[in-house]
């Protein structure tokens, strides 16, 4: 398990237009962060640009050193046992950089595999397995410069798996990809956790992707942890009301008045629109009104045309969170 304990990262920078007179400033990128990533689980790390997501990923991957706090992977400190930790983690980023375009896909994988000191025979069979996993069998021996964006991204995933890491950091892995390819990659990421037992940390700006894949989510803002939990708990924490929306044959006088009284007893607001002899009723309340509302509808013989409960999705929760912080 990866444990991040009270980790902070401060960058020292120089600011100013005059190269001979630049002021030293400090920028807090991550502040007192606590996180956990288990093997076989996909954990999402969300936040707007500059929230500290990439810094966190790089600290776990040993490319950056925390200013304070500590990170352990399966009990080993990432700073003290840096070289050992490097064998157990890998990082995959979105985009078309971080790969040698003039080399073929296979040559790229051979090179990166050799950097991990993997025996040639083991490496060859692993490359063949990875190539078929990411579906690059037909193009693995042509130069990467002839690959499409999606093929490059699939090669990146194979490259990230070359050392058979226990933990994978995925930084925007579907960035700029077409929907069908992004879906393929999501399926593969899911199988990495479920079938291969890898611990995955995923950052993405595409919120439905996080909602679909992640077992647990951390939301960071300006380096600080704002929220942790499942996407459902995030929605319920951000939006503390639920909306019950249904259409019924128009309610008249007493029946309508009685319904207003009922709504009041549930501390709910109601909004009624009428069109073509049907009333569209939206009942919004902090309480869980589901059972009471169903009983009321049944008892009073409302003629219901359709009924749904609007619960906030992850995307609207994140947007709402960002709006509140702005």
């Amino acid at each position, binding site marked *: 398990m990866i444990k991040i304990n009270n980790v902070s990262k401060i960058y020292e920078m120089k600011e100013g237009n005059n190269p001979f007179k630049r002021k030293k400033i400090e920028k807090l990128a991550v502040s007192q962060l606590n996180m956990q990533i288990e093997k076989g689980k996909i954990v999402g790390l969300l936040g707007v640009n500059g929230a500290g997501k990439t810094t966190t990923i790089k600290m776990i991957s040993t490319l950056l050193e925390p200013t304070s706090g500590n990170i352990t992977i399966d009990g080993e400190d990432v700073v003290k046992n840096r070289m050992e930790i490097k064998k157990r983690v890998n990082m995959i980023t979105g985009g078309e950089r971080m790969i040698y375009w003039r080399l073929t896909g296979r040559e790229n994988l051979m090179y990166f595999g050799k950097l991990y000191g993997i025996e040639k025979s083991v490496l060859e069979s692993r490359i063949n397995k990875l190539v078929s996993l990411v579906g690059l069998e037909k193009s693995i021996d042509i130069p990467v410069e002839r690959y499409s964006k999606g093929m490059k991204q699939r090669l990146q995933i194979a490259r990230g798996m070359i*050392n058979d890491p226990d933990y994978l950091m995925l930084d925007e892995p579907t960035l700029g990809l077409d929907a069908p390819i992004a879906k393929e990659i999501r399926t593969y990421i899911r199988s990495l956790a479920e079938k291969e037992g890898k611990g995955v940390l995923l950052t993405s700006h595409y919120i439905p992707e996080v909602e679909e894949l992640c077992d647990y989510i951390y939301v960071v803002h300006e380096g600080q942890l704002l929220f942790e939990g499942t996407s459902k708990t995030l929605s319920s924490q951000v939006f503390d009301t639920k909306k019950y929306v249904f259409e019924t044959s128009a309610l008249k006088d007493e029946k309508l008045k009685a319904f207003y009284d009922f709504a009041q007893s549930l501390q709910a607001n109601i909004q009624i629109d009428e069109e073509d002899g049907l009333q569209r009723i939206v009942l919004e309340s902090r309480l869980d009104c589901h059972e009471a509302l169903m009983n009321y509808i049944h008892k009073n013989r409302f003629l219901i045309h359709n009924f749904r409960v609007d619960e906030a999705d992850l995307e609207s929760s994140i947007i709402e969170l960002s709006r509140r912080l702005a």
Partner: protein
Amino acid sequence: MKVFLGIVGAEMRKQYKNYFHSKFVYFSLFLWPMITFVNGYYQFKPFDFSAVSKTIPYLNEKSLLSFVLIGYMAMIFFRTLVQSAWRFSMERTAGTLELVYLSPASRLAIVLGNCLSALVNSVWLFLVFMVGIQLTYSEVLIQSPFWFTMAFIMMIVMSVLWGMLLNGLFIFTRDSSFLFTILEEPMEIFAGVKVPVSIMPLWAQFIAGFFPLTYAIKTLRMFMFEQVNVSEIFRIFGIMTLVCITMFILTLLILHYGEKYNRKTGHLALF
């Protein structure tokens, strides 16, 4: 050791595939040093060497071709490595440098592989040309063939260590073009490629002392043109060994502290 050599080999193959992908690359690798050499040689050809011969007895019209040839040959070795180090710093822009540092690979093996690749791929064609010219046109025979060979091997070792040192510097310096400017032309001027260091003013000789190429050229010319006694051989090889050890230690320190600095600042990802 097996893993270390595996990484050296992988880095060499990668650099070869990445940069030597077309026959035109070899053509330019040959053409450019050849033009530089011909230019250097014909700049000196019209001059009278009698005044210089008083200070440097072996330098005359007959030996001029071999004199310039040795200077340029050694310079091509060293200059190739300055360029390979500069090229390696481009990996920062490509983002691949971060991936190299993400791996547990020996950093020393990486820079060694990069240097050897540059040397093997860039220099051989020019070397063949040099040997051809020497055998065909030169009127001078090598005075101490054994020690000349030893000096040649020592020059290769020195140039590789020079390349490793520069690789370290270029990896961890974002503004590497500044280093390139400092090292390219001044190395040619002060290391005695064309003009012998011994006839330079004292301040220029002082600067020359900072370039390992100076010692390599001096030693090669010494064994080419003169009979050298044993104590002088020990002295010159001792100096060269000391220069090599200093470069190696500096490389280790730069690689260690450079990576540490980058882990602190995150500059490895900036370009």
